């Protein structure tokens, strides 16, 4: 019995010992596994951190993959590490050989990678489209060993496959699941980082895009191979390709018609890293100046690398027009001054000669000529001064109670002689209810009437008619009714919206039976620069072309507005409207 008990206890002791030993072993294995996992995790993190530091904030996939592949040798063995990146026109295949292999090895890896891309994207890639770059060890014919171990890692940014990375070797069964999984994780981490960064960049890009889209200047950005990456609507408009989606540099080459060598200038700018400013050139009736600049990267890794070029088409049509106007204006002024000055000089020369007996009447004639010429020049200078004051916003009117009827009669008498010479009927039509004390600058209003009446006479054929009319516009009535009541015949009705809606106003119109003005010219008549361009048609008596611009300034100085209605072949009516205080009206009986 005792033997049995001792035997039983011994057995239990052995069992217990075995149980404790087994437990200890299991714990040890678990600890070792945890330690191994921790070590692997720390290793993964260390590698990820190193790669992360090297990548920085790059968004260049090729650069990122380059950094990853150059770090791989630290923890995995391979004969070759390679990657393929899908580019718009080719597939870039880059392989780094850690040790020499046969050419067939390279071709085999390349084909496997192409198959991987094809399977991922469900499309076929042609071998001819692959651009191959080899680096590292040399190829050796005697090392004819096949690809025995390899694995591909798809390169995905956002939700788009951009390429594939492959690790390969001639030894079979080389890669363990753990090693391969680390690499997949590593690539996934890099992909996530780039995707997040791209989302941030995309948001910023959208802001910049909105700005570029709304720019009036044409903006075109190309990559280093002169493919257009960014183009705004203004740039498309310049070459007449509004609405066209895909624009290439050839569209610009075709439409610029050799006036600006865009391709050549971009090449120069990108290669030499320098800016270029073109001469002015015209396309489709507009003038442009092109600025070509290289686009450089600012990242630490590739500082100053040129990514492409940008071309800005600045519309200088307005500047060109202004220059032309200035030139025309200068030549006009020189011409207008030279003629009277020559007259004065020649007359003075005659006066310098010893006086002959009985030359008194001739001397008076010479002095009159000098007076006329100098008066003409003074008027011209005054016009220029008035135009300068208007431009500077310093034009002022001196208001005083005025009977407009007196001014109209005075001007009628002044122009009657020249109208009579050409058998032009000059008449005035004035409504009886015109207040006699409207605050006006009499001299300036005379200046306006001089301009309008002289123009009317100038462009009315002999035997025609010119009518100067004045009436009060009542906001409660219509202009059509008021002109009809006055029996005023106009080439076209006056626009109702040109008159104040809540105040009475003085309306003065100078209408003629002249040649009329084309509709497209009318909006520009009161602009002194445009007017000068059409000086042959609308210039005033002195020919400066400033008359209507000054008249506009004078009327606006009275708080009014000036306008014109016209019919080709029927005549024109220039009118101005000056509002006045209703208290000036005579109470109706």
């Amino acid at each position, binding site marked *: 019995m005792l033997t049995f008990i001792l035997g039983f206890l011994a057995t239990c002791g052995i069992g217990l010992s075995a149980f404790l030993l087994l437990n200890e072993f299991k714990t040890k294995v678990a600890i070792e596994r945890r330690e191994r996992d921790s070590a692997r995790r720390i290793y993964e993190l260390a590698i990820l951190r190193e790669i992360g530091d090297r990548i920085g904030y790059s968004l260049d996939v090729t650069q990122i993959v380059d950094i990853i592949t150059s770090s791989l040798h630290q923890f995995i063995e391979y004969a070759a590490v390679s990657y393929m990146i899908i580019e718009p026109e080719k597939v870039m295949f880059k392989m780094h050989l850690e040790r020499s292999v046969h050419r067939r090895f390279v071709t085999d890896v390349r084909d*496997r990678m192409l*198959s*991987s891309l094809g*399977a*991922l*994207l*469900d499309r076929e890639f042609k071998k001819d489209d692959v651009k191959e770059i080899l680096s590292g060890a040399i190829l050796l014919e005697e090392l004819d060993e096949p690809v025995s*171990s*390899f*694995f*591909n*890692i*798809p390169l*995905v940014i956002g*939700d788009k*496959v951009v390429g594939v990375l*492959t690790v390969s070797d001639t030894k079979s*069964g080389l*890669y363990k*699941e753990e090693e*391969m*999984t680390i690499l*997949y994780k590593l*690539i*996934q981490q890099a*992909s996530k980082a780039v995707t997040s960064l791209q989302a941030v960049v995309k948001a910023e890009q959208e802001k910049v895009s909105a700005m570029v889209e709304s720019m009036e200047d044409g903006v075109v950005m190309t990559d280093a191979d002169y493919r257009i990456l960014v183009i705004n609507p203004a740039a498309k408009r310049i070459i007449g390709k509004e609405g066209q989606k895909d624009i290439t540099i050839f569209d610009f080459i075709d439409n610029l018609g050799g006036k600006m060598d865009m391709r050549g200038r971009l090449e120069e700018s990108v290669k030499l890293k320098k800016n270029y400013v073109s001469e002015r050139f015209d396309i489709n009736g507009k003038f442009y100046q092109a600025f070509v600049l290289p686009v450089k990267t600012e990242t630490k890794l590739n500082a100053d690398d040129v990514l492409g070029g940008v071309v800005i088409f600045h519309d200088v049509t307005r500047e060109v027009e202004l220059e032309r106007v200035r030139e025309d204006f200068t030549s006009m002024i020189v011409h207008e001054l030279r003629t009277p000055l020559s007259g004065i000089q020649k007359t003075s020369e005659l006066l310098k000669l010893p006086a002959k007996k009985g030359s008194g009447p001739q001397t008076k004639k010479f002095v009159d000529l000098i007076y006329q010429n100098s008066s003409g020049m003074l008027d011209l200078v005054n016009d220029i001064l008035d135009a300068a004051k208007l431009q500077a916003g310093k034009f002022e009117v001196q208001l005083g109670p005025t009977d407009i009827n007196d001014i109209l009669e005075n001007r009628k008498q002044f122009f009657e002689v020249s109208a009579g010479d050409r058998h032009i009927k000059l008449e005035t039509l004035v409504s009886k209810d015109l207040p006699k004390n409207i605050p006006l600058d009499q001299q300036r209003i005379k200046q306006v009437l001089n301009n309008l009446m002289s123009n009317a006479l100038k462009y009315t054929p002999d035997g025609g008619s010119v009518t100067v009319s004045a009436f009060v516009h009542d906001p409660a009535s219509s202009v059509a009714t008021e002109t009809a009541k006055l029996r005023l015949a106009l080439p076209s009705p006056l626009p109702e919206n040109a008159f104040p809606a809540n105040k009475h106003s003085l309306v003065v119109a100078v209408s003629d039976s002249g040649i009329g003005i084309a509709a497209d010219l009318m909006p520009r008549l009161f602009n002194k620069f445009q007017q000068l361009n059409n000086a042959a048609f609308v210039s005033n008596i002195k020919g400066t072309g400033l008359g209507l611009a000054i008249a506009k300034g004078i009327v606006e100085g009275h708080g009014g507005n000036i306008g014109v209605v016209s019919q080709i072949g029927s005549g024109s009516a220039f009118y101005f409207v000056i509002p006045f205080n209703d208290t000036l009206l005579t109470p109706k009986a």
Partner: protein
Amino acid sequence: MSAIVQMLHLVIFNMSDDTGQYAALISEIIKKQSVILGPEIAIVKARSVPGLMVDNDGKVTGVGDNPKETLQNLVDQYVELSGQIVKNALGSIFAKYPTLNLPTSNK
């Protein structure tokens, strides 16, 4: 009685037919992933799926008791390894098996 036997026979027959289709579908998936990722990693990951048996050429020899779950686990393995994009590449394979009751996320 004979009708019940006939019905049971039909159910059993259909189940085994489905299992065969699952095996064929999974074989195709492993084959495609072998092209995309390489055969070594594709087979290693397939073998880590409980119930799934794969030979050295990637051919399925067993799909376990619940082939639908096995299929889902396999796809999850590949997605965990290299992202959703590898699953997208399987669309054309799933389309070839319209009668199979595929896991919802793979439809």
